[in-house]
C-alpha cells in the first residue's frame, strides 16, 4: 500500500506539544513571548544578531541587581522596537530618536526608578542626535545602551551615521564617501566631552572576552543609575550578519577587525560621585504661589462711594518702550478691578528690540467686555510725538488726548478731541525720576475724567512699588498730575501760544 511519507507538521503543533527552552534564561525575560504574534518561543532577532546578547546582558544585570520591578525600559525605532516582547519590566515605546527625551520625562516623574533608553545608531546618532546630547548634557540620571552596528537594520541596510568610510549600504552603494556623507560619528567620544555624564564606555560583542567586558559595563552603568549618581552611557559595537551578508562567525570577526579599529574600545569617563551645589528653591503652599490667598489690598467696601459715570470707558496709552506705557495701563486696569468694574488690558507686543514703541488698550466697563481692542478711545495718553500723530485722530468725538509736551507740534492738525498738553516727563524729572512721567499722566487722567479714584491709585501703587523712596516719588507724581489739571486754564477750543490746546 503506497503511503505518503510527507508528514505535514505545523509549527503550532510543535508549540502545542510544548517547547522547552534548553538553556537557562533570566527571569527578567518573559518565559513565553506572548506579545509576539507567532513563534513565541524565540526572538525576532536574526541568528548572530548582537541585540540578543545585549538584551541578555541587560536582563541578567537587572535580575542580579534586583531591579526588575523598578525598571522602565524605553524601546526605540529600529530592530529593537520590539524589546517589550522580551523584557518583563515596565515598557514604553518611543518615536524614532526621541527615547532620551521620553526617558527624561519618565525619570523626572519617577526619580527613584531605573530608566533605560535602548537605542540603535540611526535612532541615537542621526535622527535623535539632539535628544541624546541634551539628555547627556543635563546629566539625566538614566542609562543609555547604544547598539552600534554601523547600518540601518530594520529598514533594510541603509547608511547609518556610524557607517564606515568605504562601507557599502543601499543608500551608499559605492561605499560611504566622506566627501559626500562625512565621517562616522563617534558618539561615546562626543558624549564624554560633556561635563555631566558620569560613565561612558564603548564595548564590542566581538568575542567572548569582549562580551564579558560588555557584561561588566552594563552592570556598572545600571549601578550608577541605581545609586542616583548620574548619566551612564554604554556604546555596544554589535554584529548585524543579515545586512552585512555575513555568517554569524564572520560578522563577529568583522566587529573585531573592522569596527573596533574605527571605534576604539575604552572607558572614556568614569567619574566619582560629586555632590553638586545648586540654588535651593524654597517651597511654598500652592495657594500662596498662585496668589489665591487674599493679598494685602484695600477692600472695595472701604473705598469712598464712587459712582462711575460711564457704562464703558476706553483708554489707549502709547509711547516709547521704557516710558511705562504698559505699566500705566496695568495700573488703570487693576484700579478698575478693585473698584468692582469689568476690565481688560491688551498690550501691543513685539520682539525685544531697540527704539520700539509700545501701546496698550484699557477697557473699563460695568458689563462683560466684548472686544478688548479699542477703535475709538475715550482717552489717548500720548507719551511721545509719534503716538500723538499716529493715534490722536482715532479718539472718539468729545474724547480727550493727554500729550506729554508743553505744546503741540507746530504743524499738528487739530483733531476732534480735546487736547491737554502737559510736560509729564519734565514734571517727573523735577520730582526725582523721569520714569514717573506715566504716573503724572495718571494723576492728570484721573483728575480730568474722574473715571476712577485717586485713592484707588495710591492703593494699587503701594502694592506694586516696594521701595519707599520710589513710592514717595510716585505719590508726588500722582499729586502733580492732579494739580496740573486743577490749575489748568481752559481757554476754548483753539490752540494757544502757551501750548495748551482745548
Amino acid at each position, binding site marked *: 500500500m503506497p503511503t505518503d511519507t510527507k508528514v505535514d507538521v505545523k509549527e503550532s503543533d510543535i508549540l502545542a506539544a510544548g517547547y522547552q527552552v534548553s538553556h537557562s534564561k533570566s527571569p527578567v525575560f518573559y518565559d513565553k513571548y506572548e506579545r509576539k*504574534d507567532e513563534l513565541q518561543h524565540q526572538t525576532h532577532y536574526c541568528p548572530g544578531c548582537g541585540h540578543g546578547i545585549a538584551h541578555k546582558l541587560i536582563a541578567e544585570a537587572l535580575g542580579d541587581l534586583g531591579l*526588575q*520591578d*523598578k*525598571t*522602565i525600559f*524605553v524601546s526605540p525605532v529600529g530592530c529593537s*522596537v*520590539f524589546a*517589550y516582547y522580551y523584557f*518583563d*519590566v*515596565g*515598557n*514604553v*515605546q*518611543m*518615536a524614532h530618536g*526621541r527615547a532620551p*527625551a*521620553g*526617558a*527624561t*520625562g*519618565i*525619570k*523626572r*516623574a*519617577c526619580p527613584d526608578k531605573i*530608566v533605560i533608553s535602548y537605542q540603535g545608531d540611526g535612532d541615537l546618532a542621526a535622527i535623535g542626535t*539632539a*535628544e541624546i*546630547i*541634551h539628555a547627556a548634557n*543635563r546629566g539625566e540620571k538614566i542609562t543609555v545602551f547604544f547598539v552600534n552596528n554601523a547600518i540601518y537594520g530594520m529598514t533594510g541596510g541603509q547608511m547609518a551615521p556610524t557607517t564606515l568610510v568605504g562601507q557599502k549600504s543601499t543608500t551608499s552603494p559605492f561605499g560611504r564617501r566622506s566627501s559626500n556623507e562625512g565621517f562616522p560619528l563617534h558618539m561615546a567620544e562626543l558624549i564624554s566631552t560633556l561635563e555631566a555624564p558620569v560613565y561612558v564606555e564603548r564595548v564590542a560583542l566581538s568575542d567572548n572576552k569582549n562580551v564579558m567586558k560588555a557584561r561588566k559595563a552594563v552592570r556598572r552603568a545600571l549601578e550608577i543609575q541605581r545609586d542616583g549618581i548620574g548619566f551612564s552611557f554604554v556604546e555596544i559595537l554589535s554584529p548585524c550578519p543579515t545586512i552585512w551578508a555575513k555568517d554569524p562567525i564572520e560578522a563577529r570577526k568583522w566587529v573585531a577587525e573592522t569596527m573596533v579599529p574605527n571605534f576604539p574600545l575604552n572607558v572614556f569617563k568614569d567619574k566619582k560621585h560629586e555632590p553638586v551645589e545648586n540654588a535651593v*528653591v*524654597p*517651597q*511654598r*503652599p*500652592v495657594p500662596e*504661589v*498662585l*496668589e*489665591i490667598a487674599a*493679598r494685602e489690598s484695600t477692600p472695595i467696601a472701604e473705598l469712598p462711594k464712587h459712582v462711575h459715570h460711564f457704562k464703558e470707558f476706553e483708554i489707549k496709552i502709547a509711547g516709547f518702550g521704557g516710558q511705562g506705557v504698559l505699566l500705566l495701563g*496695568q495700573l488703570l486696569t487693576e484700579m478698575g*478691578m478693585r473698584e468692582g468694574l469689568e*476690565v*481688560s*488690558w*491688551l498690550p501691543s*507686543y*513685539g*520682539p525685544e528690540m531697540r527704539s520700539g514703541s509700545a501701546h496698550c488698550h484699557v477697557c473699563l466697563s460695568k458689563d462683560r*467686555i*466684548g*472686544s*478688548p*481692542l479699542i477703535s475709538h478711545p475715550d482717552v489717548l495718553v500720548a507719551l511721545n510725538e509719534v503716538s500723538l500723530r499716529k493715534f490722536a485722530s482715532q479718539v472718539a468725538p468729545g474724547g480727550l488726548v493727554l500729550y506729554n509736551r508743553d505744546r503741540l507740534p507746530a504743524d499738528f492738525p487739530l483733531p476732534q478731541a480735546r487736547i491737554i498738553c502737559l510736560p509729564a516727563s519734565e514734571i517727573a524729572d523735577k520730582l526725582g525720576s523721569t520714569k514717573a512721567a506715566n504716573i503724572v499722566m495718571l494723576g492728570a487722567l484721573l483728575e480730568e475724567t474722574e473715571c476712577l479714584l485717586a485713592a484707588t491709585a495710591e492703593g494699587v501703587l503701594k502694592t506694586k512699588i516696594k521701595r519707599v523712596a520710589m513710592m514717595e516719588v510716585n505719590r508726588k507724581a500722582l499729586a502733580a498730575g492732579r494739580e496740573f489739571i486743577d490749575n489748568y486754564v481752559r481757554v476754548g477750543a483753539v490752540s494757544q501760544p502757551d501750548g495748551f490746546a482745548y
Partner: protein
Amino acid sequence: MRQLCKGNVAIVKGAILAGCRAYYGYPITPASEIAEAAALYLPQIGGTFLQAESEVAAINMVYGAAAAGARVMTASSGPGLSLMQEGLSYCAGSELPCVIVDINRGGPGLGNIAPEQSDYFALVKGGGHGCYRNLVLAPASVQEMADLTMLAFDLADKYRNPAIVMADGFIGQMMEPLELEYREPQIPERPWAVKGTAETRKNLINSIYLEPDALEAHIRKLEAKYIRASQIEPRHETFETDDAEVLLVGYGITSRVLRSAVEMARREGLKAGLFRPITLWPFPKQALADAAKKVQKILVVELSNGQMLEDVRLTVNGKVPVEFYGRTGGNVPSVEEVHSHVMQRVMALV
C-alpha cells in the same frame, strides 16, 4: 478674590490647580510667558519645569511623563506646534493624556508674532499622521484660559488623549480679572501607566501594531472614543440668538469682537446673534445646526482665510447661506469693521 492676570499666566495657574506638576517646553513668542510662569511656580511646589532643547524634545518629554502617569503639559505657538505634530500623533496612538497649549501667531513659516487663528486645521483636523483626533478647546478670556486648561486635563484623562488649548496672541497677552479657588486636585487613577512598580510591571505604552487587523482594531478603539466624545463633549456659548436673523460665528478673540458687533448691530435695530464654539473638536454641530434653523444668514469671522468655516458649512449643509470674513497676518478686525461688513455684505442679501 479677583486677581489681575495675563492670559498666558492663567494657563499655568489653571494647570497647577488641575494637579499638573510637570511642564516641558521651549520658548516662543507669544507663548513664552507660559514657560516663564511654569518655571517660576512649579519648582516652588515640588513640580518639574524643564526647558527642552526643542519642541520635538518637549512633546516627547511630555509623552514620557504621561506614560509614567504624571499630569503634564507643554505650550508653544504655531512653528513649535508644527514640530510637535509627530509627538501628538504618538501620544494619541499610545493613548497618553496630556495638555498642549497653542498661542496661535501669524504663519505660514516664520510669519509673525501677532494673533491668528490659522492653526485650526493643524490642531482640529489633526496635523500629525494617522487616524486620530485632538480634543481642542478655545478660550476667549483670561478666566477661561485657566478654566479650560483645567477642563483640558480632565478631558485628556477621560479619553486618554491629548487635549489642546488653542488661544491666540491677544488672549495670551491680555490681562483680565481672574478668580481662582484652591481645591485638592482630583486626579483619576491611571492603572495603565508604567511607573516602575511591581503592579505596573506588565504595562506597556505603545503605538506599534504590526498586523493590519491589530492596528485596525486599535484605530476602531480610538474611533469609538472619538464618537463618544463628539456626543457628549461639544460646548458652545450663544449671545442674543433667540430672535436673531443674522448669526455671527467665531471663537476665541474673534468671538469677543463679534459680541461687541452684535451689540452694535442691535443698537441699530438689526437682529444679530453670536454663536461661539468653545470646543473646536468636537465641534458643536448639533447646537449650531439648531441655531442655524432660526436665522436667514450666517457670517463666519476668523483670523484666517477660512478654516473653521469648513466645519460651519458642513454643519449647516447648505440650508442657510454662510458668508465669511477673515483677516490674517496678525490683523484683528475692529468691531466697526465687522459691523460694516455685516451691514453692507450680509444684510444686503437678507
